[in-house]
């Protein structure tokens, strides 16, 4: 159906946002790419009194490297993420995730900040930023604060964002030569939200041993699920079939998938185990030698 009636204001600076929020209170909603918000308005799932367009705020744009940190402005569109040379070099997991997100026309509008703020439990980017141990930069009239991605997602479609804050940027520790990452998922149709997915990040030492593994599953809970047991099963181990099997076994205690329209919990558990092997197999010595 048509969107409900609302007003539209264009913010040029963060000060404009703070002022418009002060004027309109809870009726004000921020819109960037709009690929989720505008679709939900068509269902009348919410009826904001005013949409505050933040897409022209320069401070929220751009991809830069500062020391060993990649800073990605919240307004970076998925398509930009997919073709940015700095992202490809320093956070290849994010570039690899892009083709899984919806469809080309949507990737040309949707933004990383919007995806993280919406926090869909089956979305790719929330899982990726947790896997990469990224930090979210949250801005408010009081200044900035930084929240670890793993602390940011607090529940179903819920985040640590306070009403007066917005996501300004994502800071990702730049990949090193030892870094390995992969994203895999199962979806019924191309571009659909995943039935189950895995964003994985780890370091592989010269001795072939794994350190700092972070296996983050999506589509299997209320948000991205950092699998502590499966990750711990890999720590310090040489990556081989036995280590992968140990991670798969430990996964049983890490996830507690709900039943949903795709199927029962045991199906998702099965998919998560399969995805674990698919992702980690890429880093086996033979697979790396072949690539």
């Amino acid at each position, binding site marked *: 159906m048509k969107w409900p009636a*609302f007003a539209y204001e*264009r913010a040029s600076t963060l000060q404009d946002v703070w002022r418009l929020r002060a004027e*309109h209170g809870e009726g004000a909603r921020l819109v960037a790419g709009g*690929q989720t918000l505008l679709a939900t308005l068509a269902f009348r799932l919410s009826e904001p009194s005013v949409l505050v367009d933040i897409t022209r705020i320069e401070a929220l744009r751009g991809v830069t490297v500062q020391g060993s940190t990649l800073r990605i402005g919240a307004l970076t569109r998925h398509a930009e993420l997919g073709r940015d040379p700095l992202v490809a070099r320093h956070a290849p997991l994010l570039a690899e995730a892009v083709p899984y997100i919806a*469809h080309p026309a949507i990737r040309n509008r949707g933004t990383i900040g919007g995806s993280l703020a919406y926090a869909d439990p089956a979305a790719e980017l929330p899982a990726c930023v947790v896997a990469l141990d990224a930090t979210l930069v949250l801005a408010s009239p009081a200044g900035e604060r930084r929240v670890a991605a793993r602390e940011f997602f607090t529940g179903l479609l819920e985040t640590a964002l306070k009403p007066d804050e917005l996501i300004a940027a994502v800071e990702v520790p730049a990949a090193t030569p030892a870094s390995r990452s992969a994203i895999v998922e199962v979806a019924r149709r191309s571009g659909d939200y995943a039935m189950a997915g895995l964003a994985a990040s780890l370091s592989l030492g010269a001795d072939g041993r794994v350190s700092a593994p972070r296996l983050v599953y999506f589509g299997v809970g209320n948000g991205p699920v950092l699998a502590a047991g499966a990750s711990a099963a890999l720590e310090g181990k040489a990556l081989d079939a036995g280590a992968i099997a140990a991670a798969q076994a430990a996964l049983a205690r890490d996830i507690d998938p709900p039943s949903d329209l795709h199927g029962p919990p045991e199906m998702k558990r099965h998919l998560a185990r399969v995805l674990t092997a698919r992702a980690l197999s890429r880093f086996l010595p033979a697979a790396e030698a072949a690539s």
Partner: protein
Amino acid sequence: MSTRHDITLTVNGERVTRLVEARRHLIDFLRLDLGLTGSHAGCEHGVCGACTVRVDGEIVRGCLVLAASLDGAEVTTIEGLSDSGEVADLQDAFVARNAAQCGFCTPGMVMAAADILRHHPDATRAEIREHLSGNYCRCTGYQAIVDAVESTLTARKEGVR
């Protein structure tokens, strides 16, 4: 608080200025305010792709773009794309392959297919399907559409040779 906004933008190479309601999406703006009815309003919540148009050179879902946000933008619709001749060969291939049946999805499909011709000249059949996966067709079963795009890509490459 403003619910109506003056916007000036370029549509198919022509500069237009209109007063639009905040709740107007790009497709209703094109169809109802400018009379450009080639872009279709299908599902109106970002799923079907019938409303695919170009904004600032890249394809978007017209039903998920606020017209009020487009001050200064450059919009190309199927009318503009057709008139430019950019996809005349693709359109011929759609006819030759019977890739349009009821025709409702066709304008959006051609906009999305043009994106493949422009950005992915070496696309495989699987990549064509992937790229068009956000554009629904309820008549053809897609084979003829993919055939049309594939044969256009091939013909263009042979033309280059």
